[in-house]
């Protein structure tokens, strides 16, 4: 019988044709990302063609990266929450609240005395706290994430306005700007932060039990629960994580603008979701890609950079943006082999 079963296994080796295994690779992560990379390259080619050296300069690339950094960090967080089958509309509002809170601290009378680390700590804390509230509302309150985070969006922004009295608060604490606006080996601190968050995000999603659970919870919550995963607790943690990213982004936007303001982060939710989705993360959950998200963010920021380089009117730019998005996605799909769309 053991001899028999060996034969059976051989027979089961349904030899893959070279052609179809290529298609398999293309249809998988690599393929999708390849499409994004090509879209990005095409954009860069357009940039060079229309703006030449102005576009291709190191300075300009750093400008693009700096812009990508803040929304990038938020998008990494958003990748987790979407992969887990939820959505977070409150990211921008949370960042606004965190920026206002930490700068209020820093503009109060005793301002001179506090170390900028305290500011940073405050921002992260506010971010995490808001995220946890979202998580509790979703996981234990049973409120759909769209609604729960919409409520958070309204409340957090309102609260930020009240705290800041609708004024923009300029950061006066010394070390803060010095530290976060500095360069390290020629690369801006913000870009380092984005890189770090991306790498940690990638490891977390692809190499840890946390990431594995996130995918499971998003792919089939009932199956995840029956497999012994504490889905509720995990959901709370994921929202806490995206809150943490918002806190980091708050620090970054505060450094970038040297201000805390209740208007920071307006519509970041849309930008972040767009970057995540164009990156290939499934809006319905269960599949997430950090590399795709990073590429998605870069595509959108490069796009707006290319637009600054020419003199299209703002309206014409909007029209062009729409068309380019469509073309980029179509291109990406053709490259990713047959579309995984199943209608």
């Amino acid at each position: 019988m053991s001899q028999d079963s060996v034969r059976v296994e051989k027979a089961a080796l349904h030899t893959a044709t070279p052609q179809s295994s290529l298609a398999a690779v293309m249809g998988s992560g690599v393929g999708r990302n390849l499409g994004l990379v090509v879209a990005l390259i095409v954009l860069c080619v357009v940039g060079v063609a229309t703006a030449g050296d102005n576009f291709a300069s190191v300075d300009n690339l750093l400008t693009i990266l700096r812009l990508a950094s803040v929304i990038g960090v938020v998008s990494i967080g958003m990748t987790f929450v979407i992969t887990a089958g939820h959505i977070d509309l409150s990211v921008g509002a949370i960042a606004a609240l965190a920026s206002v809170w930490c700068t209020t601290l820093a503009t109060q009378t005793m301002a001179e005395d506090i170390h900028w680390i305290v500011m940073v700590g405050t921002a992260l804390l506010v971010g995490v706290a808001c995220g946890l509230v979202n998580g509790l509302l979703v996981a234990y309150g049973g409120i759909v994430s769209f609604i729960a985070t919409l409520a958070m969006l309204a409340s957090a922004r309102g609260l930020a306005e009240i705290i800041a009295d609708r004024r923009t608060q300029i950061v006066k604490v010394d070390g803060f700007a010095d530290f976060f606006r500095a360069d390290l080996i020629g690369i801006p601190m913000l870009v380092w932060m984005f890189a770090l968050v991306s790498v940690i995000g990638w490891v977390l999603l692809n190499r840890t039990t946390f990431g594995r659970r996130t995918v499971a919870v998003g792919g089939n919550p009932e199956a995840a629960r029956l497999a012994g995963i504490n889905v509720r607790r995990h959901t709370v943690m994921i929202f806490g994580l995206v809150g943490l990213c918002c806190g980091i982004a708050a620090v970054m936007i505060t450094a970038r603008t040297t201000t805390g303001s209740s208007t920071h982060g307006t519509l970041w939710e849309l930008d972040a979701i767009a970057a995540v989705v164009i990156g290939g993360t499934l809006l319905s959950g269960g599949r997430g890609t950090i590399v795709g998200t990073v590429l998605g963010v870069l595509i959108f920021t490069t796009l707006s950079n290319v637009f600054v380089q020419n003199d299209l009117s703002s309206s014409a730019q909007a029209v062009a943006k729409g068309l380019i998005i469509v073309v980029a996605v179509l291109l990406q799909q053709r490259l990713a082999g047959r579309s995984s769309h199943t209608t």
Partner: protein
Amino acid sequence: MTDRPLLRMSGIVKEFPGVRALGGVDLDVRAGEVHCLLGQNGAGKSTLIKVLAGAHQPDEGTIVWDGEEISLGSPMAAIKAGIATIYQELDLVPHLSVAENVFLGHELSRGGLTQRQRTNNIVRDLLARLGHAEISPNRLVGDLSPAGQQVVSMARALSHDTRLLVLDEPSAVLDQGEVDNLFRVIRGLTAEGVAIVYISHRLEEIRAIGDRITVLKDGVTVATGLPVEETPTSRLIQLMTGRSIEYVFPERSAEQRDRGAPVLEVRGLAHAGVFRDVDLTVHAGEIVGLAGLVGAGRSEILETVYGARRASAGTVAVDGKPLRRGSVDRAVRAGIGLAPEERKSQGLLLDEAVFKNVTVSSMSRFARFGFLDRGAEQREAEALTTSLDVRPTGVTRAVRTLSGGNQQKIVLARWLMRECRVLLLDEPTRGVDVGARSEIYQLVRSLADRGVAVVVVSSEIEEVLGLADRVLVVREGAVVHESAATAIDEATVLDLVMEGKVPA
């Protein structure tokens, strides 16, 4: 029954990325016959019938329908031709009613407005004809049990002018009584000249209902048109698997007859409106079987023991330590595992790799400080799936691309991977082929021999009696009988599940 084939498929080839699912299949079906399609898990049965249903486009091959070559470019084309299909994975729309599902795609309407009354009346008749007049046409399909959904699919097939009805493992979700009912319906149809293609892994069913048999192996036809009466079971198994398997239950070993300490103790467990007062003690090394009809509440008992449903009364203890109600992760940590009944919705992460599905409940074993050792995960999953004969091999393949029976094996593998104290198995061999089936029996027994306490729910009475040491009969949410498996026979169990008592 005429000899001219109603359907002739020849040289059908279908490739998926990385897999040649069909490598040249022939099939011919005559009007009025029940044509059985046999083959191991992954042999290509479902793929073949999806080609026939217009859901897959073949890469090569021809289909001749009623004497003319046709191309089935879409499901609509097949339906129009008179081919109705009941898929292996029930494909209904959960938030539509029974009646709406039955007429989905060919709604009865006047001026765009649906005719609810007329639809309901027709559906009510169809359901009655199927022996299920109690299902209301207005009920949401999502609220029905899998067996109920199966009936809806049947009603849908009958709502068309059907000349060929394809049934892909319809009996998997049915108990014996329901299967008999199904056969009654099938006989009625064949008498009217409808051809049936019937897929099942239960060979006794083939004997009961089939006329001719086609056997697939690894995507090719190895035998076609075998008359049922003249083909012995051993020959069929030989054809399907390439080897001969003795279809027997493993020997109950000596030591477990003097049972070990009680591991799982359930006292007075109840779930309001579903079951009540369940006492259950399972000892180390013991296999306890729960027999009963579909809808008797056996799945709910397992799920409640597991904490997936919150008990309204009663206690569950493992090794003497009571569990918190309604907490699955506590139960898992205490050493309980559940292989749920509905693999697709409750068990699997369909888009994930095989190995991730296998290790999901034992991740901590592969993790250090939360970081997973993928190499180890894949190695161990590979070893386990190979021992279960999962095909095709390769643990990085998405579970979605596996055949139904192989998916079932993955669900089992998950709990074999985690060394449980208590294993709850809900219909563990549903959709599993004969070869793998005896391997699963073997595995369950050897787990028990290693001291695991096992509870098995099965709608096949033979399976319960053959595999378990002790049998509990559940009827309408209550345990009506308990005895050693050897102390009771099939007929008695049948009486108990039906009547709740043995007729005097």
